[in-house]
């Protein structure tokens, strides 16, 4: 008889991430990244944004392929619905960021995940974007994220995963804190 240990595998290479942390501590300038999206107007409220290159680790980098995203508005906005609304894309970003964080933290804490489901809801009063009431803001007045997680862990450990993921999430930070945004015309 011999005992076997079950490897926790959430598909996250924690060793590489921790290695990157060590390496970047020696060369902090390489930690500066610039992410880019280029957008072309198609027609009406329909636009097409592509993502391919970005800057990081001191040089120009490329995704393996070019990713293209159509954004539009639904028919109730008298649009043609060629894609999700831009605000829904923000929800995509938040869901993807928090969930990736959960996987990474779980791997680091040796917790095997079986399933992670997130429902992200962003509420807004469209009187803001329609310019009907200056007291109403354009953006979300509330964002609600509900996780349903099946993992080899207690409820408290799962909640701690979710808390730590928020602590290290870029999109969570972007949504909860103000950012200077400069818009220019060439």
């Amino acid at each position, binding site marked *: 008889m011999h005992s076997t240990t079950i490897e926790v595998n959430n598909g996250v290479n924690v060793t590489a991430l921790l290695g990157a942390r060590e390496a970047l501590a020696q060369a*902090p300038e390489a930690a500066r990244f610039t992410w880019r999206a280029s957008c072309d107007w198609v027609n009406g409220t329909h636009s097409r944004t592509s993502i391919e290159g970005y800057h990081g680790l001191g040089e120009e980098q490329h995704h393996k392929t070019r990713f293209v995203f159509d954004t539009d508005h639904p028919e109730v906005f008298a649009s043609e619905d060629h894609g999700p609304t831009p605000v829904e894309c923000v929800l995509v970003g938040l869901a993807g960021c928090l969930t990736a964080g959960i996987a990474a933290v779980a791997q680091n804490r040796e917790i095997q995940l079986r399933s992670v489901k997130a429902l992200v809801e962003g509420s807004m009063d469209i009187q803001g974007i329609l310019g009907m009431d200056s007291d109403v803001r354009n953006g979300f*007045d*509330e964002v609600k994220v509900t996780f349903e997680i099946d993992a080899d862990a207690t409820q*408290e450990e799962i*909640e*701690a995963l979710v*808390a*730590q993921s*928020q*602590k290290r999430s870029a999109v*969570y*930070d972007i*949504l*909860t*804190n*103000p950012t200077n945004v400069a818009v220019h015309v060439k």
Partner: protein
Amino acid sequence: MIDGTRYPQCCPARVVTVVVIGAGHAGLAMSHYLGKRGIDHVILERGEVANSWRHERWDSLRLLTPNWQCRLPGLRYAGPDPEGFMTMPEVVDVLRQYARQLSAPVHNDTTVLSVQPADNGYRVVTDQGDWQCRAVVIASGAFNLPAIPALAEELPSFVDSVSPRDYRNPNQLQNGGVLVVGASATGLQLADEIHRSGRPVTLAVGEHVRMPRRYRGRDIQWWMEAAGLLDQRYDEVDDIGRARRVPSPQLVGSADHSTLDLNALSERGVSLVGRLAGLRDGKLQFSGALRGHCRAADLKLGRLLDAIDEWARESGMDDEVDPPERFPPTRVPDAPRLSLDLASGEIRTVVWATGFKPDYSWLHVPVFDRKGQLCHDGGVIDAPGLYVLGLPFMRRRKSSFIHGADDDTRELSAHLAAYLDGQHHAGVTTRQRSVTFA
């Protein structure tokens, strides 16, 4: 106290083996061990013994550790109220008596202007003349300068800005609303007393550590000490950088041993907002992460109490103490405010309970990292014969506490003695430290 012979500044430096900078609890504890080892030393003190406790604390402040825990090498609390918490005048008395008991070689009113490498050691330049020494122990504390965010500069002129170092009591503040920024021990205590003075308080809450004053009938510090948490060493934790940045727990030392937490403040009418994130067009902006920060603190508190309960069970203590309890979750308003227009006049004063940082502007030795933080290994600075004391989690979780000084100064004085011996035998100063210690 010995008043060193005064020389005019033009005269050659006085020579001593070790200069200790600062006559607070840590410098005095180091003096105790240096004295026992027969190492000649002086303590240079910019004011008088316990200077920060005398001059840089607010009126109502009491220590966050119970009296029985305020031990120093060769000193135990023997007063009538071991479970009580000392006021600042009481702390000053204790340290003054301790200095007297040690006959500590304190040079009062001596401000260190510069420490720089010099032949076989360091030259310490002060406003009372120079010292030449072989080793320097920095015991000037971790909390010299208030760490105030840059946006404080942009506050409109009709809003006063006050740091906890200058704050004494609510009467010095304008009438009207007060924003307290920061929700660790200082922020909670000041929010409470300012709100009670009739000035409505808004409290900006970021990451924080929630802790009850008493748990299962004992002080929380008793549990932390008994369960070994305070003795946890800096080389035993996964990420010491992170451990050193953990905010100080929300505690208050009061006569009734009550817990001061965000729920208590909410009940009294203090309004909670998220971390102060910006100031734009005269409007303060608060983070929308308040609920997340409170949830994280509640979870962390749960883990701490779980660990304490487990330790109590394993140590067979369950019958001696009250049964385990859990505290209600932190109540957060449904929609905390995200901005506050200063032009409304609602806020007349901002109190920056945003922490302190040490002042090393006089330390002219290349021992800092790119962020200006002192590089040290458990208090052994990355330059031969240079030591530091009393920084958060420096050698142990208790390093910045009064009772943390004993173990740290005992070990670092041993390291220092070994260094002096090695230097004596080698006859030269080397950058390599060959001495080791447990």
